């Protein structure tokens, strides 16, 4: 055991970047031929930024019209969420990302974590409050979803919009293979989220994920994942989730700003224990997103999901979407959604979303 600790410490030591002053000073030989053009003094433009983090604010405005007489209906007009992000490098070994979400009634830390980027053994460690690495949609913020809502299976089995979002530790390992991107992630959380509950300190929840990705051609790729989560549910027993996700992407490099297609499915199996019995529920969605022109996208999604505590209730339906990008920094989206709830009621709605962002240019999610 002690030897292992020493080995790890030793490996950490090996990976620590050398101190600048200690770098080997190599003499720079002077080229004899033609004198190269004098370097132009152009500092990398710290501008007025100094050590401030990159700051951005994203507004997510939603509107809904049409028929939905259930308790799940969303309001007619709503400033659904305002997300402020603060992102910067902490020190040579880590970076930090904070996302504060302001919604109708509350302000909360949607995510706030540190990522250690210089660990040995192909490890990446995140510590803080995070969205758990269960499947695809759970880890996504609202503004990167290809829809105005979250699929029904997420509402029914994964805790809804908040999902598995909790304080904890995430450790992931990248297998050093050339042909396949293979990544294993293990996470431990306090156990307190929309889905899990932790009345006692020992009621931790766990998330595990294995992701495999491969480029098929330069324009197409396949992304597969298997996920597992377990924790204590609201009646004091254990809920286990098993997930499978598959994504196929097409984006021709030469026409990358005009054309892309993303086909995705996520399937989730829930095993919820409840005083002596185990309730099994299943749900999933399949979606297709297609870019028609530089600023126009269409989409379609099919939903079907049983309820976690009563699998005899099945919600099913579908959506079609149209999205327009005035620029990289704003987005207008309309979604027609038909949904038949397990209780028998039907909802036909038009959902509208306006996303707008100011501040630093964030990277695009993949």
């Amino acid at each position, binding site marked *: 055991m002690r*030897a292992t600790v020493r080995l790890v410490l030793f490996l950490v030591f090996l990976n620590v970047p050398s101190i600048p002053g200690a770098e080997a000073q190599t003499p720079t030989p002077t080229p004899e*031929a033609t004198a190269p*053009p004098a*370097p132009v003094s152009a500092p*990398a*433009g710290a*501008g007025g930024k100094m050590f401030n983090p990159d700051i951005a604010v994203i507004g997510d405005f939603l509107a809904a019209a049409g028929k939905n007489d259930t308790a799940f209906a969303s309001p007619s007009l709503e400033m659904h969420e305002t997300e402020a992000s603060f992102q910067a490098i902490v020190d040579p070994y880590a970076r930090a990302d904070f996302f504060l979400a302001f919604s109708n009634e509350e302000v909360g830390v949607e995510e706030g974590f540190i990522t250690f980027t210089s660990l040995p053994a192909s490890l990446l460690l995140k510590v803080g409050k995070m969205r758990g690495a269960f499947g695809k949609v759970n880890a996504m913020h609202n503004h990167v979803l290809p829809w105005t809502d979250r699929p029904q299976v997420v509402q029914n089995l994964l805790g809804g919009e908040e999902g598995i979002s909790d304080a904890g530790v995430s450790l992931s390992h990248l297998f050093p293979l050339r042909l396949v991107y293979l990544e294993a992630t293990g996470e431990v959380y306090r156990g307190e989220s929309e889905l899990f509950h932790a009345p006692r300190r020992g009621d931790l929840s766990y998330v595990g994920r294995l992701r495999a990705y491969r480029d098929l051609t330069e324009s197409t790729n396949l*992304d597969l994942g298997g996920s597992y989560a377990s924790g204590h549910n609201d009646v004091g027993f254990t809920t286990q989730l098993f997930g499978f996700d598959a994504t196929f992407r097409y984006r021709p490099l030469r026409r990358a*700003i005009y054309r892309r297609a993303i086909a995705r499915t996520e399937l989730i199996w829930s095993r919820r224990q409840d005083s002596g019995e185990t309730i099994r529920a299943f749900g999933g969605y399949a979606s297709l997103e297609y870019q028609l022109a530089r600023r126009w996208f269409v989409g379609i999604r099919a939903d079907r999901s049983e309820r976690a505590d009563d699998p005899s209730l099945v919600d099913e339906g579908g959506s079609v979407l149209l999205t327009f990008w005035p620029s990289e920094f704003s987005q207008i989206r309309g979604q027609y959604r038909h949904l038949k709830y397990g209780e028998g009621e039907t909802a036909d709605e038009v959902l509208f979303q306006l996303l707008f962002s100011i501040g630093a*240019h964030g990277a695009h999610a993949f």
Partner: protein
Amino acid sequence: MNRLSFVAALIAASLAASQAGAALQVVTTTEDLASITREVGGDKVKVESLSRGYQDPHFVEAKPSFVIKLHSADLLVVVGRELEIGWLPPLVTQARNAKVQPGGAGYLDASLHAKILDIPTGQLTRAMGDVHPQGNPHYWLDPDNGRRIADDVAKKLGALDGANAAYYAERQAAFDKKLAEAGQRWDAMMGPYKGLKIVTYHRSWPNFTDRFGLDVVGYVEPRPGIPPTPGHTLDLIKEMKAKNVKIILVEPYFDLKTPNSIARETGAKVLVLPPSVGGEKGIDDYVELFDHDMQMLVAAIKETAAK
């Protein structure tokens, strides 16, 4: 004792590994930087570019397969000036490689000593479109900047691989000489056309037009990153007619519909000109890029000279 010998073996193994993996693994974000690094690094480096030359370098997808490449890289060379801001940062974070983190020993921003144009002054807002606060990132299109990049690359390779520092310096000097001579050739080719008015699609060419004395009177995009609008297109047509502009330069990754309709209205010629190595078949290195673009440009000017 056992443990000690184990540690010793580990050290020996890691040393052996660093000796055996002779060639430095270099990843660049664009093919232009890859070409320059190959010129300097010769057979002591193995260079791979993440993006292709026919791809818009602003909009590259952050594919996990790039993480694999960054994971094993000894050196990452970036264009900088926020060109890659939309896709590179998450890849570097996930690379699990301390060397290529910003500020790490194996991270090189190629723009640090280059001549950078279009550095905005005064208040900056997104009403100007997708502007780059640190200046125009398409700076590699001036061969003198190519020489400055090569100089930086040689110094960095020498610092990472001291045993071959002289080799890199020698190759850099030879490349510098080659570029200096080629630069004179290109200047001579463009000499007769100094002051020629052209229009370009995106603001990709300021270093190129500055170096070779072309006068850009307008852009097909109303603002950087904003697709053409009918109103702006009409204005541009009017201006091109008034100033007798006969050439529209378009990067290979943009749609030709608007440029073609402008050309029909004005009698100008649409010239698809690759701004990067690999932008077209046969453009395999940095010198060939300029050779190709110069020939195409001069041919187009001659063709439209019967104005």
